[in-house]
């Protein structure tokens, strides 16, 4: 084989290994408390995201679970550049995006789109479906009217909608159909990554299954990377290749979804699984692993391991030292004193 072909193979290899998204030590602190007329007395900070690292490969789905207030949606907003991080880096296809501005930011927005939880809030009530879906094209391309129409009809078809819906208004659709419109809108440009922030949480169970199937099919056809955010373990586990468990702004556990579901190791993950309702009510398992208190506020998180006040297996030094993240054999990342690492 010639050198050139070797080079090509090497290039292809790096492309294959290249991650769509690499997040490294991401931190977002929100100011809290009163600040009026420039007098910023005893300013407090909510550590919404506190040193989170993960990556997503092309065509992969990373599930992100945690209770409300754990920073899931803040991560989505940071990746979407709706908020600016306090520190840390987000690299999209190798390019740092946290400091993009102007045209570069606009260019980034071509490739990363989002579908949000509430389908009643995510579509402008005064725009026709065609215009809602076509907006991305009108911003980023100079397509002619008929090109726009063709493309919009194509993505509507991808999302399982007929082209006729284009001239209707959002209020004429059900929640599931609205979510399909939102998905079509997110796919209209050359989308490479989709942030699904509780994208099916607001839907009926039967429609939820349809939308999940649609999302899986789309990913297979288009090779889009998903960041799927949810609190419903069954859905997240079903849709994701890997699952990341977050608690009060920090990652507690991350592994392949099958592995994680089969064998949760962190007490918090175990508790989350124990709290989920089984499909058969007779199979309700041991409820003793339920966390024993409310989620502490992110304004004043517990010392040491944030989870220790609710943890069944908490030890003495859990309340004083935050556990370092370790990598177990098999690649699982976990932060817990029960797994001190090597």
């Amino acid at each position, binding site marked *: 084989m010639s050198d050139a072909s070797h080079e090509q193979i090497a290039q292809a290899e790096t492309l294959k290994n290249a991650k769509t998204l690499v997040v490294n030590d991401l931190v977002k602190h929100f100011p809290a408390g009163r600040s009026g007329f420039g007098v910023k007395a005893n300013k407090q900070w909510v550590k919404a995201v506190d040193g989170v690292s993960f990556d997503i490969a092309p065509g992969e789905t990373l599930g992100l679970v945690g209770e409300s207030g754990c920073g899931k949606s803040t991560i989505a907003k940071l990746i979407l550049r709706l908020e600016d991080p306090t520190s840390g880096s987000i690299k999209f296809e190798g390019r740092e995006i946290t400091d993009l501005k102007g045209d570069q930011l606009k260019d980034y927005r071509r490739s*990363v789109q*989002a579908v949000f939880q509430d389908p009643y809030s995510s579509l402008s009530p005064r725009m026709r479906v065609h215009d809602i879906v076509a907006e991305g094209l009108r911003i980023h391309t100079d397509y002619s009217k008929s090109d726009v129409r063709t493309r919009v009809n194509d993505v509507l078809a991808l999302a399982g909608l007929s082209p006729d819906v284009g001239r209707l208004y959002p209020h004429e659709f059900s929640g599931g159909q609205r979510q399909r419109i939102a998905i079509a809108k997110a796919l209209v440009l050359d989308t490479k990554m989709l942030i699904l922030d509780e994208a099916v949480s607001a839907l009926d169970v039967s429609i939820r299954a349809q939308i999940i199937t649609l999302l899986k099919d789309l990913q297979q056809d288009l090779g889009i990377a998903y960041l799927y955010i949810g609190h419903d373990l069954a859905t997240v586990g079903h849709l994701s290749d890997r699952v990341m468990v977050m608690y009060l702004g920090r990652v507690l556990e991350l592994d392949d979804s099958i592995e994680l579901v089969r064998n949760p190791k962190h007490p918090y993950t175990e508790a989350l699984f124990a709290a989920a309702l089984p499909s058969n009510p007779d199979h309700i398992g041991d409820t003793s692993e339920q966390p024993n208190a409310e989620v502490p506020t992110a304004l004043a998180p517990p010392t040491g391991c944030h989870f220790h006040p609710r943890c069944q297996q908490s030890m003495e030094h859990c309340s004083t030292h935050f556990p370092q993240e370790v990598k177990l054999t098999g690649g699982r990342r976990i932060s817990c004193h029960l797994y001190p690492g090597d």
Partner: protein
Amino acid sequence: MNVPDSNNSTKMPRKASRKGALEEASSGEIRNANKDSRSKVRAFLDFVKQLPVGSTLILGILVFFAICAPLLAPHDPIRPVEGIYTYTPAAWKDGGSWAQWLGTDFLGRDVWSRIIYGARVSVIVGLTGTAAAGAIGMVMGVVAGYFGGWVDAFIMRVVDAWLAIPTLVLAILLSMTLGASMWNIVLILGVVYWTRYARILRGEVLTLRERDFVKLAEVAGAGRIRIITRHIIPNVFNTWMVLASLTVGVVIVAEASLSFLGVGVPAPQPAWGSMLNDARAQLLTGRWWLMAAPAVAIGLTVLGANLFGDWLRVKLDPQQRNL
């Protein structure tokens, strides 16, 4: 409460027909063009049927007067009626006629003709003054609400200061500085009344800005101008319309007040406010009808405008009854 009965009686069938259209549309049936145009006619008829009778009639007549004034007025409104110099309505005199049925003013001009021409001033100033206030208020409210921060704080403090100034005093001051003309009055009324729009629209924009579709527009790469014009303004337009319809009456009264005080529409152009002022001296001598005619005209117009505004408010958004 202020809404005429006609509204209630037509509410039910209208709702039913709209629901029918919705089901038809959502069933995915492709309607052909013929059916489409017929349903448009039907929609228009439905719309006309549900209009409040009283206020629509008053405003309709007013606009009709304003547009067709030269055809309707029996006499030139700014010249004395030839050969007549009398205050008493002709019909009241022995062997009188209906020729000048509201009498003539102190210069011998036909009051009825001046009322008809005066409708022009009220309609033009009422609508454009409201639109001017609405335009300023829309820009200020949307900018304050969307950009927030010190821009918001600054604009809202200006609004607070503005609201502390008595509106009529400010209007008189501006009118005397700028000089009285009809278009100056429009401008002045716009500058005086924009604050009510700015306050309420700012609040609307604050909630809209947090809605997901605005965030998604940003994620899609839409710039600020696009978000404001495509996503914010269309969604505050209903509120704007309601505010405008409720401001028309206020603006008409304000114009009449300025004209009454002699700093409004300059003589000899007929305006109801200045007619009131002209008739003031005659009231002392017992010729009350000269004052009654423009007073009734102003009262009816404002009543019509307010009733229409109330109806529109309830129709567009029942939750804003306490606006």
